[in-house]
């Protein structure tokens, strides 16, 4: 499937992308708007850069994208559990790492004869959806962190961390 909607569904249907977006959204919302002016534009720019790099030139990095995304989700989830005010550079680093890898990992299957504009529409849908998801989750987390002393965000952070740890354990178990 190609097109804007198919692309928009991609981050929702890719568990590794979704969990890292949830983790970052929780963290960004909890840390407050002082992070947002830098982190949201950086997320969008590096996401598009990753998308273009992998789809035009091919992914030049021989890393396991899902492994990196799970590690970022684990870290972001743990930081949300701790709920300590973080330096801007640390959150920015996590955001940029995740967005670049999400971009590099979003490569639609190119069927012979498919029009190029359909591929680009799919990629645009995926980029828009990822940005909208992160923004929406951050806003949600921002307001949620005002309730019940921020307990709900910390509980959700622990859920994300637990899920990421288990999946990482499974991957390492398969490699050994």
């Amino acid at each position: 499937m190609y097109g804007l909607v198919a692309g928009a569904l991609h981050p929702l249907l890719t568990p590794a992308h979704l969990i890292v977006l949830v983790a970052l959204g929780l963290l960004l919302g909890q840390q407050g708007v002082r992070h947002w002016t830098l982190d949201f534009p950086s997320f969008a720019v590096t996401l598009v850069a990753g998308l273009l790099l992998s789809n035009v030139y091919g992914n030049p990095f021989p890393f396991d994208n899902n492994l990196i995304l799970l590690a970022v989700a684990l870290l972001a989830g743990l930081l949300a559990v701790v709920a300590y005010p973080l330096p801007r550079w640390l959150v920015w680093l996590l955001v940029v790492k995740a967005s670049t890898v999400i971009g590099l990992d979003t490569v639609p299957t190119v069927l012979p004869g498919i029009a190029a504009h359909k591929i680009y529409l799919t990629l645009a849908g995926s980029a828009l959806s990822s940005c909208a998801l992160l923004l929406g989750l951050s806003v949600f987390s921002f307001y949620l962190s005002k309730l019940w002393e921020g307990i709900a965000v910390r509980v959700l952070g622990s859920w994300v961390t637990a899920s990421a740890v288990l999946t990482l354990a499974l991957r390492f178990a398969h490699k050994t």
Partner: protein
Amino acid sequence: MRFITSAGLLLALFVGTTSVAFAHTGGGIGGGFASGFTHPLNGLDHIAAMVAVGLWGAFLGRPAIWLLPVVFPLVMTFGGAMGIMGIPVPAVETGIAVSAIVLGLMVALAAKPPLWVAAVLVGVFAIFHGYAHGAELPQAANPLAYSVGFVVATGLLHLCGIAVGLLVQWSAGHVAVRAGGAVISLIGVAFLLGLL
């Protein structure tokens, strides 16, 4: 508060109507979020212990009310990882049954130990529950979706316990919550004796 109470009763009803004792059959789990989500809900022993954690947290008040449900999934992952790696842990089923007995008793006796004692106790039992989930993590299906499913289900069971536990602020509610703890403890005994 009335909303929370109503939501708690509704969740309790939901939990009470789930099927029982299929959590550790080891087969037939397809994978994905749905099977992960239903895994803790298919075993009464899991449900009883998870709800007890929430009940006890509500009983102990702040900060235990949120600390225990945060500690549980985090420590549970260690047990899960051990299950995935195949590291042997003795008497997992017994540990799960004992967790229901002990946590239920804590609620029934209105025990209020220091916070670190409660956290350690809950953490130790979390390893057994995590091990059971981890050992059955389906390798062919999407493991991340499965993990998210069972972690979310576990967390919702804690929230269910917390919601019901908030009844302790009324005297009748206090009695009801302690009685609930006793029932959970009895369920644990039944599992330990192989009656359920």
